[in-house]
């Protein structure tokens, strides 16, 4: 062994990682070609997904993915921002802070399939009685159930990102503001949040990336219908959940290829959002007032 060989070894490991990434992209592109060739651009906006007539349009799942993620964000943002602010600005006792931190970490590490199980046994019956009381079809499963559980799943992630963004704001800024006699609320909304907003927004984007790609819990709760969802109580599918529920049982080669195409769409979307989030994050770190 010498320095040269050592460097070659390291370079090799780096290549492996890059190769995995490039290989994923390549595999997905090649595998989805048959379906894309058959459908053309309609693969993206076609509203019919029918294995019998072998028509494959991804629109119902793109809409399903956007709907569940949007609703989940709408629920999760106020809750996580609040929790993040409380943890970052209000809790002074070290003991309580570490309890909250541990709780959040524990929740972030609960596997998706366990959330799915919890959703089936707890959330679906609740949503079913809600649906019955408003006269919607009482499946229980559907967009709302999936979104609710999705929201709970991203809350720990989003709130700890918020907390971190606030903690990173330069302490001197805050002390100066208190010295001027500002109330806590004024310090938080007037000083801390504006300085942390890029990082917080980045945290929201990264959480969105997670929500879009979340598979198991959504598959178990969304009802697996291949139609475009029209209401909160509609059954639907996301890009990820349709792959999980149909891939092993694909009826034809085009059907399988179409699912690889869905995987590709999902991959590209999460890639773009992740990239955007990380760029913002870097910018955010520079804007912490240090």
């Amino acid at each position: 062994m010498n320095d040269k060989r050592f460097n070659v070894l390291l370079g090799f490991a780096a290549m492996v990682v890059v190769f995995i990434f490039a290989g994923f992209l390549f595999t997905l592109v090649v595998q989805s070609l048959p379906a894309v060739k058959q459908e053309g651009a309609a693969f993206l906006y076609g509203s019919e997904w029918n294995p019998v007539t072998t028509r494959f349009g991804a629109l119902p799942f793109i809409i399903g993915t956007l709907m569940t993620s949007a609703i989940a964000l709408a629920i999760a943002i106020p809750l996580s921002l609040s929790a993040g602010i409380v943890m970052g600005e209000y809790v002074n006792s070290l003991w309580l802070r570490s309890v909250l931190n541990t709780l959040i970490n524990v929740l972030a590490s609960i596997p998706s399939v366990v959330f799915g199980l919890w959703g089936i046994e707890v959330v679906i019956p609740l949503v079913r009685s809600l649906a019955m009381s408003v006269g919607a079809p009482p499946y229980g499963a559907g967009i709302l159930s999936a979104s609710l559980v999705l929201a709970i799943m991203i809350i720990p992630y989003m709130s700890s990102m918020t907390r971190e963004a606030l903690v990173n704001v330069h302490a001197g800024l805050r002390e100066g503001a208190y010295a001027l006699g500002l109330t806590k609320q004024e310090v938080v909304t007037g000083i801390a949040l504006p300085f942390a907003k890029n990082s917080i927004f980045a945290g929201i984007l990264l959480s969105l990336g997670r929500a879009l790609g979340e598979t198991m819990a959504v598959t178990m709760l969304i009802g697996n219908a291949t139609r475009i969802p029209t209401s909160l109580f509609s059954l639907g599918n996301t890009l990820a959940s349709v792959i999980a529920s149909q891939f092993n049982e694909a009826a034809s080669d085009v059907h399988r290829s179409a699912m690889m195409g869905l995987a590709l769409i999902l991959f590209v979307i999460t890639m773009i959002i992740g990239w955007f989030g990380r760029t913002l994050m870097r910018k955010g770190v520079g804007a912490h007032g240090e």
Partner: protein
Amino acid sequence: MKRNAVSKSLMLLTLFVLGLTSALGAQTLLGSGATFPAPAYTKMFDEYYKLTGVKVNYQAIGSSGGLKNIQDRVVDFGGTDSFIKDADFSKYPGQVVHIPTVIGAIVVTYNLPGSLKLRLTGDVVADIYLGKITKWNDKAITELNPGVKLPNLAIMPVYRSDGSGTTFNFTAYLSAVSAEWKSKVGNANSVSWPVGQGAAQNAGVAGVVKQTPGTIGYVELAYANQNNMAVAVIKNSSGNWIEPSLASTSAAAAGAFPADTRIVLVNTDAKEGYPISSLTWLVVYREQNYGNRSREQAEQLVKLLWWMIHDGQQYVTALDYAPLPAPAVKASEAIIKSITYNGQALIK
């Protein structure tokens, strides 16, 4: 020094893995596919394990998945409820044969308050799944069920979200009895459902129906009975109301049996036959020497198949499947004897 130790232990681990692989390889068989006979298969394979020590791993992933896996040659056998069509044989890298295992009934199950017993015709079931009948107290249903007090409740159809032979046979039946179904939806392992909720696998559909009032679904009889679910009495092509049972299922297969065992049983003309009955098959390659398969592996497989159509049959009735009728056993014996390794028959 440390690095050496690491690479050495890595090598040892690899050797260990390879050793285990060769030591245990012959003792296991892998299959995947139809969920419709899965309760019967898991029971049979459990008994077979106690008898021979051979572990047969069957993953109930749906018929389409089983066929795809046998096509990719990643399993020893595939299970399917819909036989391979002539036009599709060319998709397989070798000649495949069908061995029927049991006959099952697909029942129309529902969840209604009170223990109501319903009579339904194929037409009405088709209209429900077409979204034309949406309430349980629709005239079309009440007319068939005089004296039954049906609630003013929305009907929620539940279907299989995965590709499945159960769906194939159910939609084959609906296509046979409803022209509108045939033209609008058709008949396949997975179809584009006009209305309703998808659930994965027989167990999934049974699960949703059991948990949701107002639902209607189609599952294998065994799933319905094991879970005390209500099943509908269906009118067959001879105009008789038939309760799904072992006897009425067997009756559906009473006719002639083709040598390649590929026969559709739905909408049978047998007078006492239940109209949504189906055979289910295992699909294997006729020539077993492919990939890295050993002769032992092929022999294990053939032994298992032989056992399943003979001794294995004793376990199926308890699970509400009808055993194979004598002509089917005879045809299957001939097929199993035709399975070869390097061109040599594996069983005589």
